[in-house]
């Protein structure tokens, strides 16, 4: 609750404080002319659910860094609706139960207008029902197909990153044409991994290929060698996507297993090496193998001004590491989603003329009316279209090859490669 001073009760100290603030505003007007013209210049408070600890900590660290960089750019450009924007971060420990608690805390205690930022699908799935209960928009940066599959609710949207179903559908034609038809999949044994398994299996079948073995590995696993003998001999392509703190161990053990000789072609989602240097000791065998990348971690030769602007703003060097510490490798293929979500929010909040929490429904409707988000400083990963019915964004994807320890892009898909028929129409669902 905000305290409104009753006339006549204003204390001397309050009066002085008000005068100082007013003076500050007038003085600051030269620097921020657009903020003052808005109806209210009180900042919007946006909640950010961050995986600061737990198994998603590497992603969380970079999500926080990226969204803070985006916030600086956003506020320097006049904020949203002429009002400055503040972010409030709360650590969800990459835990679904904590995720729901944190959502509530951000909304009720910190008075945030909405919440965004979660990546891990179990956290998203665990938190989304609370968004519906509290009737507060929840924007996820998670890749999971759970938004577009219709499993969540009208308050949950994913405007900043393409979902897994679209990604793997766009990868399958290239994999079957260039690497092989008989695929063994290795994936984490939970929702995110099933999105990969189910959708890639279907997409390969459509290309005349076949997934001949599917190895689900529990996400808490720390040792992987014992799974590897189950890779059938006739495998032409190993498709791997792993998450969590043990990813480096997984890739190393894959290398050890095949150190005796030839190995099948290897196609991985960069998730298996997000936050890890691809030139780490033990990963030499990855030379010449391919990776999906949401956004190219290594600066490519044909980098655009948008790419260099974004990279500089976040503070990432040409190898994809933090400029102040080359050992701190970013999660470059995912973290752009926080940046893009913040700018998508700007568009939607301005379209909805968002004033406060009571305009939540209008904000969701404004998102549902959005369609194109062209490649720009606001959307540095690439062109995107937003499907208002499924609450899901669709963008381009990259395939990179490791050459001399660098990820070099060899193919970029079109948005159309990743489109699929709608599975839900959230606009028909009640709020």
């Amino acid at each position, binding site marked *: 609750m905000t305290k409104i001073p009753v006339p006549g009760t204003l204390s001397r100290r309050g009066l002085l404080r008000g005068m100082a603030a007013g003076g500050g505003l007038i003085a600051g007007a030269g620097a921020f002319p657009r903020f003052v013209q808005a109806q209210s210049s009180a900042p919007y408070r946006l909640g950010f659910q961050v995986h600061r600890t737990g198994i998603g900590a590497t992603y969380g660290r970079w999500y926080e860094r990226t969204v803070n960089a985006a916030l600086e750019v956003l506020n320097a450009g006049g904020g949203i609706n002429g009002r400055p924007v503040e972010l409030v971060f709360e650590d969800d420990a990459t835990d679904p139960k904590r995720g729901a608690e944190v959502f509530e805390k951000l909304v009720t205690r910190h008075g945030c207008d909405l919440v965004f930022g979660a990546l891990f699908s179990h956290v998203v799935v665990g938190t989304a029902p609370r968004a519906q209960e509290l009737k507060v928009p929840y924007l996820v940066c998670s890749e999971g197909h759970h938004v577009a599959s219709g499993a969540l609710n009208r308050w949950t949207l994913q405007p900043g990153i393409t979902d897994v179903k679209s990604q793997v559908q766009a990868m399958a034609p290239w994999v079957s044409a260039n690497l092989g038809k008989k695929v063994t999949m290795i994936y984490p044994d939970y929702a995110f991994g099933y999105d990969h398994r189910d959708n890639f299996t279907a997409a390969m079948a459509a290309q005349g290929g076949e997934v001949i073995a599917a190895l689900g590995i529990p996400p808490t696993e720390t040792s992987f060698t*014992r799974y590897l003998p189950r890779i059938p001999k006739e495998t032409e392509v190993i498709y791997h996507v792993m998450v969590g703190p043990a990813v*480096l161990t997984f890739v190393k053990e894959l290398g050890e297993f095949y*150190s005796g000789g030839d190995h099948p072609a290897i196609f991985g989602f960069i998730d298996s090496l997000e936050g890890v240097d691809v030139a780490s000791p033990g990963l030499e065998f990855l030379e010449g193998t391919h990776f999906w990348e949401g956004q190219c971690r290594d600066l490519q030769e044909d980098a655009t001004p948008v790419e260099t602007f974004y990279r500089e703003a976040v503070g990432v060097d040409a190898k994809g590491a933090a400029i102040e510490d080359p050992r701190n490798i970013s999660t470059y293929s995912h973290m752009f989603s926080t940046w893009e979500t913040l700018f998508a929010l700007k568009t939607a909040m301005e379209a909805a003329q968002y004033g406060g929490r009571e305009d939540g429904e209008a904000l969701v409707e404004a998102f549902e009316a959005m369609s194109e988000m062209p490649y720009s400083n606001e959307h540095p990963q690439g062109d995107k279209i937003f499907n208002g019915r499924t609450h899901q964004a669709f963008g381009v994807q990259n395939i990179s090859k490791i050459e001399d320890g660098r990820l070099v892009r060899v193919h970029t898909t079109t948005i159309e490669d990743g489109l699929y028929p709608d599975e839900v129409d959230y606009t028909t669902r009640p709020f």
Partner: protein
Amino acid sequence: MDLGPYLLLAALEGLTSAAVLALTAAGLSLVFGVMRVVNVAHGEFFMLGAVIAWFVTAHVGGPPWLGFLLALALSPLVVGAIAAAADRLVLKRLNYDPEATIVATIGLLYLLQQAALSFYGPDARPVPAPFDWRVRFPWFGYSGYKLFVIAAAGALLCGLWLLMARTRFGLVMRATQYDPRTAQAFGIDTDRVYAGVFALGAGLAAAAAVLIAPISQAHYLMGGDPLLLSFVVVIIGGLGSLRGTLAAALLIGVGEGMVSVFFSPTLAKILATLAVALVLVFRPEGLFGARAR
């Protein structure tokens, strides 16, 4: 893959996990055997061992084996010192009351875990292996370092047995375990024995963690699994029995390796838990434990 090589791989994997498990569980078993303390913080001593190994290897220059050997020497010492301090400051003041010490060690678990989170951070960090050598079997490659882990854990366990059976400290420890009051009457400073045993138990967990860190990295949440598996091993083997601990570690480690390779790791965990339940029902003192006197 054919059955033969498949079995070989399963056995190697099983032996590696059994070796590390035996070391960790021996520490837990020793502490219970002598002090009658159920140390719930045991997994966190394991985690601290790996984290300290990371600090040592990251800050010592020179070849990887040098940093690793230093870590193997320093990490159990540091963790042992922390454990001895915890014994003096907390457990002793509770008079080693069984219920109170369980609660106290749960508190210790959170303290150590959150301290690691604050000072070390939430990331998993790789610890370099002392050497990079791969065994090339005709059917698959295997990390030579894992074979070293099996040998090193075996050597450490032999050392532990010698310490228990052939040294004065071992004698004093066994005397205290058998009857603390009489031991005290014979002039044994049981407080020092308890502190020493608690430090030794934690040090064993730390040594196991240093061995496993180059395989599985160091992470602040890595203490959970070893704690659970150590309890499984200790319950099956019989609390306080070193021989039983070793046998149960081999049974669980190799059995889990086999079941994981041929069926699924989840099934292996289910079977291990089932074994614990069966042992508790039909032979509560464990396979090798002595019946209560």
